[in-house]
């Protein structure tokens, strides 16, 4: 059937669905623009998003094309191994709930840097944390933009460059005019579409197996051997497994665009409800992608999937074509495009907040910028990030960027998470400790990735990699914690220590 696949040819259904999505979201943006007059509305949607709405938006922000197409693809080619990623990405959410969500909402205004710098000296901490945030956002943007260009080329038959420019322009329209209000609703619509589409596909798959997933898995094992139900080649050594697990589990709690979403709700209780919804939705989504992956393995077949894309990324669209023809393929392709737009908009907004709120307003202007200036700088920063996203997308054309999502999680887990958690819970944490944690975690993770087999062997085709692990979190995250503790104990900061009681009060009770 592969020869008959319509992938890569301009598909009127896909384009129709996609244009409807863009039209709908631009109407939302037009409506949101009329309610975006203050910095608080631009960055935090006026804090009027409900817990359930924010749960959907968090899910929409988190379920990227990498997890939809990538995990379905990984499952369709390697079976069980996809579960290692799915479970890792899900178990980060309870950790966000227990340790981060409520204190973050009570202590900050727009960025996680607000919380890290709360009782410390503002300028050094802001600079370090903003750089940590921008590093994660940039890597994530590269992965998303290059993925967008390739996918859209495969699915719509548009050129890579056209695809990148369309994504950049539409996304910038949401952010620039509609700010966080538009971005939130785009993410909610996208989450509903993606979950609905995945559920529909899964139902159609299961309908062929008497609605019993075990019969589907058994069919896969019958055709490709029982190995598809067992751990395969993804995890080669125990250290590798633990290192990947650490990055997946604690990376979520250090992603700037996810953390920023907690400021859009009115209080800590709503922040808590939003993680409850997000965890439920994302868990369902990963269970569905597991079914889709096996569905593609059985109904489309290994060879047909790999023939279209070596990484298996087209498994879900190919499955849609087999199950529902051109119409369903068009719908799923449009959903994948919408997915990328929603994630990129969230990333751009969080990068803009780091640039304007953390660096310009808090560091350059020392928190004394007039209101109109804050909003103007926020919009200028959004344009800058939008242009940067398009430029990065064009610059990294044709590069293997699959490892960059993993790197973004490793950087988030090593650079941002230790400083955030220590600043919230450890009274003796100091300015020096915070800066040291962020710098050590970010630099160590980035350097070790450069010397890892992913870059040295897979990309540069060297014989040997100096650092044995593909994921650096096992070294970089504990190192960041250790350096933070040592620096804080070596040079105590009495003012920060004294301010902890007030911080603790606000962390529990909220703003006075």
């Amino acid at each position, binding site marked *: 059937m592969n020869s008959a696949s319509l992938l890569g040819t301009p598909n009127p259904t896909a384009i129709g669905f996609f244009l409807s999505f863009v039209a709908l979201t631009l109407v939302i943006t037009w409506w949101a623009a009329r309610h975006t007059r203050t910095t608080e509305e631009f960055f935090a949607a006026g804090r009027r998003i409900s817990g359930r709405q924010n749960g959907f938006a968090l899910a929409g922000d988190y379920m990227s094309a990498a997890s939809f197409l990538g995990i379905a693809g990984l499952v369709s080619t390697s079976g069980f191994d996809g579960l290692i990623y799915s*479970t890792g990405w899900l178990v980060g959410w309870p950790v966000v709930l227990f340790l981060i969500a409520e204190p973050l909402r009570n202590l900050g205004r727009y960025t996680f840097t607000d919380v890290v710098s709360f009782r410390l000296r503002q300028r050094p901490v802001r600079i370090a944390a903003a750089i940590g945030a921008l590093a994660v956002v940039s890597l994530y943007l590269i992965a998303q933009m290059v993925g967008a260009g390739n996918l859209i080329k495969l699915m719509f038959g548009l050129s890579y460059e056209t695809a990148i420019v369309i994504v950049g322009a539409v996304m910038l329209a949401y952010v620039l005019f509609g700010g966080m209000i538009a971005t939130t609703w785009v993410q909610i619509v996208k989450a509903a579409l993606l979950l609905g589409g995945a559920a529909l596909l899964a139902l159609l798959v299961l309908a062929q197996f008497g609605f019993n997933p075990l019969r589907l898995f058994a069919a896969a094992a019958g055709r490709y051997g029982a190995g598809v139900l067992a751990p395969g080649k993804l995890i080669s050594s125990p250290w590798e497994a633990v290192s*990947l697990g650490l990055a997946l*589990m604690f990376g979520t709690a250090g992603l700037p665009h996810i953390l920023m979403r907690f400021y859009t709700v009115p209080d800590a209780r709503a922040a808590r409800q939003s993680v409850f919804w997000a965890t439920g939705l994302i868990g369902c989504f990963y269970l569905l992608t597991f079914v889709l992956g096996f569905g593609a393995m059985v109904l489309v077949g290994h060879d047909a999937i790999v023939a279209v894309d070596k990484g298996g990324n087209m498994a879900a669209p190919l499955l849609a074509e087999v199950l529902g023809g051109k119409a369903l393929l068009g719908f799923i392709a449009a959903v994948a495009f919408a997915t990328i737009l929603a994630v990129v908009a969230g990333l751009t907004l969080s990068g803009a907040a780091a640039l304007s709120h953390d660096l310009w307003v808090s560091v350059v202007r020392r928190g004394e910028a007039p209101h109109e200036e804050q909003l103007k700088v926020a919009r200028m920063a959004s344009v800058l990030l939008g242009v940067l996203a398009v430029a990065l997308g064009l610059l990294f054309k044709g590069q293997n960027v699959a490892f960059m999502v993993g790197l973004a999680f490793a950087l988030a887990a090593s650079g941002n998470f230790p400083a955030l958690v220590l600043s919230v819970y450890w009274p003796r944490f100091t300015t020096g400790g915070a800066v040291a944690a962020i710098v050590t975690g970010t630099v160590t993770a980035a350097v070790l990735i450069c010397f890892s087999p992913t870059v040295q062997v897979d990309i540069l085709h060297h014989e040997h990699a100096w650092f044995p692990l593909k994921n650096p979190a096992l070294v970089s995250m504990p190192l960041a914690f250790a350096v933070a503790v040592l620096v804080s104990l070596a040079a105590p900061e009495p003012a920060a220590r004294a301010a902890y009681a007030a911080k603790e009060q606000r962390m529990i*009770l909220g703003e006075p």
Partner: protein
Amino acid sequence: MTLGLLSRQRWRIATALSAVMTLVYFGFVLLVAFDKPLLATLIAPGLSLGVLLGALVILAAWILTWYYVRWANAHLDRRVSEIRAAGPPA
């Protein structure tokens, strides 16, 4: 209940639940790393132990999330409003 006491109670619950989640997930990951044949054991046609445990990790994440939200909605929020009602601390 004083604020300090409530804060410590929240910390204990938050770290305990985080520890449980970490143990559950890394238990799964370490089994993947160390005992692949065990996870390949078929429990039923089409269901290996590995797939079952992976689904249970997702279930565990849901249960722990639900438990914390229930505790915080019922207990934490009530104590917080009591402390707020008692007026600002000296």
